[in-house]
């Protein structure tokens, strides 16, 4: 078989498969968008592909006003922004030291961190709540950020340590001989070299923390805590009240409001993410 024919066949079949998957991704999202204009009856009894009888933007207003989606979105951005930064900073520091320095208890500390990798958060909610309460951080973003960082460390250290190990020794040694301090070496030389790894773990953490739901519900409570809620809580809030007062259009509108900025941000940073990942996924 000639290579050309081979390619054509592959490209043809490939296109079909890619297009189908793209459709499977876009379909439900498009449905969500359109459903925010529909009545409850249209959503649950009608043809899912039908367009709404009237294009009523009211649901977006309700979602924005009553569900404070704007505020919660901003809260999410603040909390996740700070905590992801903190996670990456502390995580890379610990991972770097554990990966590249020999000292007593190195392995012990490494496994101490990694053991937390698979611990389901909701099991420890009660003890965790008590700790946060004792620290006086209940109902604060600070408390939530610290907890996010702590729970992201095992994953971050696990992957980054493996990554730092693969970096060549020669550069590090040269820098040290030139008189650079260990700290300087880390921030000026090693971190830039580790960029691809950092980018991919940052994405993992961003997504994980952005989508976290159980922790904020347990830790952001008390009087006035509603104003500090994050986006997932806002969505769940409408989802619950949709179950009782049945305002599903508002729920789907809220989903749309929550989805669009994420899509935009991702599309915008797509190139950076891609190139960040490219340099080092395979050494």
């Amino acid at each position, binding site marked *: 078989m000639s290579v050309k024919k081979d390619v054509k066949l592959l490209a043809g079949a490939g296109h079909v498969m890619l297009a189908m998957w793209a459709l499977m991704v876009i379909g439900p999202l498009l449905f969500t968008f359109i459903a925010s204009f529909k*009545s*409850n*009856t249209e959503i*649950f*009894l009608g043809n899912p592909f039908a367009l709404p009888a009237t294009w009523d933007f009211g649901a977006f207003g309700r979602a924005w006003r009553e569900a404070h989606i704007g505020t919660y979105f901003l809260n999410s951005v603040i909390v996740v922004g700070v905590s992801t930064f903190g996670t990456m900073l502390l995580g890379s520091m610990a991972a770097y030291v554990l990966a590249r320095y020999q000292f007593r208890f190195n392995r012990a500390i490494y496994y101490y961190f990694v053991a937390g990798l698979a611990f389901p958060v909701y099991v420890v*909610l*009660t*003890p965790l*709540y*008590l*700790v946060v*309460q*004792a*620290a006086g951080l209940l109902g604060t973003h600070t408390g939530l950020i610290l907890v996010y960082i702590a729970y992201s460390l095992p994953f971050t250290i696990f992957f980054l340590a493996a990554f730092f190990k693969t970096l060549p020794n020669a550069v590090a040694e040269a820098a040290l001989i030139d008189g650079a301090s260990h700290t300087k070496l880390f921030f000026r030389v090693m971190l830039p070299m580790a960029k691809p790894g950092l980018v991919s773990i940052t994405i993992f953490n961003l997504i994980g923390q952005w989508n976290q739901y*159980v922790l904020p*519900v*347990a830790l952001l*409570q*008390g*009087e*006035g*805590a*509603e104003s500090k809620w994050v986006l997932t809580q806002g969505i*769940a*809030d409408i989802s*619950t*009240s*949709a*179950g*009782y*007062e*049945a*305002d599903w259009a508002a729920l789907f509108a809220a989903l749309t409001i929550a989805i669009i900025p994420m899509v935009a941000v991702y599309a915008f940073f797509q190139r950076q993410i891609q190139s960040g990942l490219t340099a080092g996924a395979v050494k």
Partner: protein
Amino acid sequence: MAVPAAGLLSACVGTAGEQQPKAEGDKTPENPLGVKEDAELEVVIFNGGLGTKYATDAHIPSYKKKFPKATVKYSAAEEISTVLQPRFASNLPPDMVNNAGSKLMDQGKLIEAGQVADLSDLFAAPSLDIAGKTVGQTLLPGTIEQGTFNGKPYLLNYAFSVFGLWYSGKLFKDNGWTAPSTWADFTALLDKMRAKGITPYAYAGANAAYYQYTVILTTAAKIGGADVLKNIDTLADNAWKAPAVKQAAELWGQIGAKYTDKSHLSLKHTEVQLQQNQAKIGFYPSGSWLENEQAKDTPAGFDYQVMPLPGNSGDKLPAAAIYAAPGEIYFVPSKGKNVNGGKEYLRHMLSKDGARKFTELTKSLTVVSGAAEGLDIAPGLTSATKMLKAAGQDIFSFRFDVQYKKLDDECRNATNELMFQGGSADKFCERMQKVADEVKKSK
């Protein structure tokens, strides 16, 4: 490894935890529960079907009016257990809790653990605005009993609801149908509905199987008398294997096999209710909150009506007998800082004014007798009130679901199996009895 927080949890989880000093004031005729007038009060309200407006717009202002120096800390929660469970674990609960919703705390276990305050003095205190009566005397009969465990009243069940089969008055009128009262008439009507292309009977399996087990047990009570339910509540030996329970399960199992739509197993209650609003469903079992829940989606002229479950000639209870009970739990944690304040808050809820405003805001009746008189209520609630009157003394209820969460969970699954998945009455009774025995053993 140095553990900075060591001992901190032990203080909370480990030892009994010190009692917080209680805020107490002098008991006077004006202040019968001895509330400290400037003590802070913290209330937590479940944010669900009833909303929270009744608390923020009616009950809290009423409390503040009486005690202007007090601050009332208020918060609403959907996941009551996620939010409050750690606070009970550390003996730092709020002063009044509305324990409800799909994630409510296990009320039976809370009482067992000594976390719930005895409300005897509340019910013995004079009513806030009904002259000459104690709070207890202003309530519908059975209210205090519903919240009494081991001889002590611990819970206030505030909202009163009646349970029956709901249908569209318009649909019936258009087809010349009348509400049946016997099983024979009932199934005959279900056949007619099916012939018309309507799903005759429906409930939502995904999250509301307890509506259907309420139906099954209501039929069981009609057949064998209210004691059938008493025995289930008290975990009496073989309570679930009583002939009446089995017979009821058989009757409803047949309805499930013949007259339901299997897709309803995976739907949630509001989704099925929508279908009824669009005249796709004949009968739907629910409590009297249904009409308010569907208000936005009910087409004009739908005309919600409710009827008692059909009966048979050999039944112990008349066909008009219904399941009716106070529900929606409010309680005062015994380890709170302001227990007297929490009780006082309940006294405000139970005032005529407080109850009336609750009914206005939520379209639900309360246990305060006569508080809703003269209010302009919707057709469904009118129909429910009529049904309640017709039942007279023949009303009954159960509360094993509140007391033993495990039985509730099992009963939901057993009911779905019976109605949708080819289960049998024998299996239903068998399963339930097995879990009831386990619960009894672990007590």
